[in-house]
């Protein structure tokens, strides 16, 4: 039993190492994806930035007034939360179809399967990079001080991405076999958007509910380790420990799981 797990893990690991060694494939194809999407548009991917900016402005007006929040406090909070959520939701949603969408390539060319998952995450990182431009702008407009603590957002983003990678890898395998799971994941993401403090604040919830319900929401921790440092808000130890533990356990599971079913994926497409 443990022998089989070790074998599967070795195979999954081998595939991932091969994908990393051929990282340039991921970079070339991911860049091309974005370039293609905006090829005939004058300002190209900056449409992403503009769209996100307009959405943030509209949601700020609605929910800021609805909850009677302090706008200079709320708008940066919402802006960062929404940008990060877009990244998380798109990475996981597209992660589900990573193998399905690449089926043409998978059935023709032998390349490490994890390349296709890496490609999905890389593409969304590129989109995130465009949206990130909004953050310094918002911080500047509302004159939010940014200290050295803000640098903690970088390890936060890395930890978040490491988690997204393993989740997307598992989802890509599962969804290739069980197509309905894609719909379920879409639904979970939609619900999670409202269960996670993005358009409402953590403080609002804490004022009304005593029990720490948020601590059970991994997305809350994923967001907090990037958003709070940028806003000069404190992070708790738990905010870091949970994503860290998830990354370690998740990757161990994902490598074995992926290795176990890697050879089957081509048959499921």
């Amino acid at each position, binding site marked *: 039993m443990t022998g089989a797990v070790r074998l599967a893990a070795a195979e999954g690991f081998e595939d991932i190492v091969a994908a990393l060694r051929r990282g340039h494939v991921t970079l070339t194809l991911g860049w091309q994806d974005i370039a293609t999407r905006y*090829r005939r548009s004058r300002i190209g991917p900056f449409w992403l930035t503009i769209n996100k900016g307009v959405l943030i402005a509209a949601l700020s007006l609605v929910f800021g007034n609805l909850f009677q929040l302090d706008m200079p406090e709320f708008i940066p909070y919402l802006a960062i939360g929404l940008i990060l959520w877009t990244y998380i939701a798109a990475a996981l949603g597209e992660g589900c179809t990573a193998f399905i969408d690449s089926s043409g390539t998978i059935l023709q060319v032998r390349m490490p399967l994890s390349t296709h998952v890496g490609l999905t995450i890389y593409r969304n990182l590129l989109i995130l990079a465009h949206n990130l431009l909004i953050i310094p702008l918002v911080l500047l407009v509302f004159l939010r001080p940014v200290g050295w603590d803000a640098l903690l957002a970088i390890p936060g983003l890395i930890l978040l991405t490491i988690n997204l990678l393993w989740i997307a890898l598992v989802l890509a395998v599962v969804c290739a076999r069980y197509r309905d799971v894609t719909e379920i994941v879409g639904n979970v993401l939609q619900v999670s958007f409202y269960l996670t403090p993005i358009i409402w604040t953590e403080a609002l919830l804490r004022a009304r509910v005593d029990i720490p319900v948020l601590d059970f929401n991994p997305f809350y921790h994923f967001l907090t380790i990037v958003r709070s440092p940028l806003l000069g808000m404190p992070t708790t130890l738990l905010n870091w420990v949970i994503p860290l533990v998830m990354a370690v356990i998740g990757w161990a599971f994902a490598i074995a799981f992926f290795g176990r079913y890697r050879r089957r994926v081509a048959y499921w497409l």
Partner: protein
Amino acid sequence: MNKDLQQPARITLDGVCVDFPVFNAATLSLKNRVLSSMTGGSINRAADGQVTVRGLEGIDLDLKPGDRLGLVGHNGSGKSTLLRVLSGIYYPTEGTADISGECVSLINISLGIDPEATGRENIRLRTAMMGLTPAETRARIDEIIEFSGLGDFIDMPFRTYSSGMQLRLAFAVSTAIQPQILVMDEWLSTGDEDFRVRAEQRMQSLVNNTDILVLASHSRPLIESVCNRVIWLEHGHIRMEGEVSEVLAAYFSAPTSTGTNG
């Protein structure tokens, strides 16, 4: 590709079976079952209710440098499946397949083409997929452009090309690497008269310099001129294997009992 790490190419298949799972098999009617058991592989229902179609069964094969294997068989006999096993895309569901050596498949040379991207970008995309590093691509890109004969059009979007130009570019990129194992489904020939001659030369040189060639074809003269071994596949089994003249004579004189000669 790591020329310094290269070992001699070798393909060893031992008792290879390929079973395709069918997930929407509830719609399988009796008529369909009878028809498909006559044309393709056999349909099985495993103990857990999983319906599978057996694409290949009990394939033993040993290919060494110098082998030029021709595959013949009717449509649905398992040729494409076997090509995919040999390219390392399908892992056998039973038996083992050991494939060592860089393998290039020329089954779909237009794979991964982005119509909105320029010819030059498409070359980079395609060579990346074939496993070249950016440096290796840079070293070859001028030769590829030169061979495609596209001139200044190389920096225009692919979709603006005539179909002949599109094929020329796809051909020029796909054949830019000399693989150790070359897998083909029919011969590639393309373009106008002038290009056809150069393409033919390039194909010949690829085929002559590859360690192992596997070519599936319905064309008798083609297999006779290129291959030194032939396998005749039928219903996913090897029906006959051996010398080119012997197998081809048997195959082409066999009555088309399945009625699906294509």
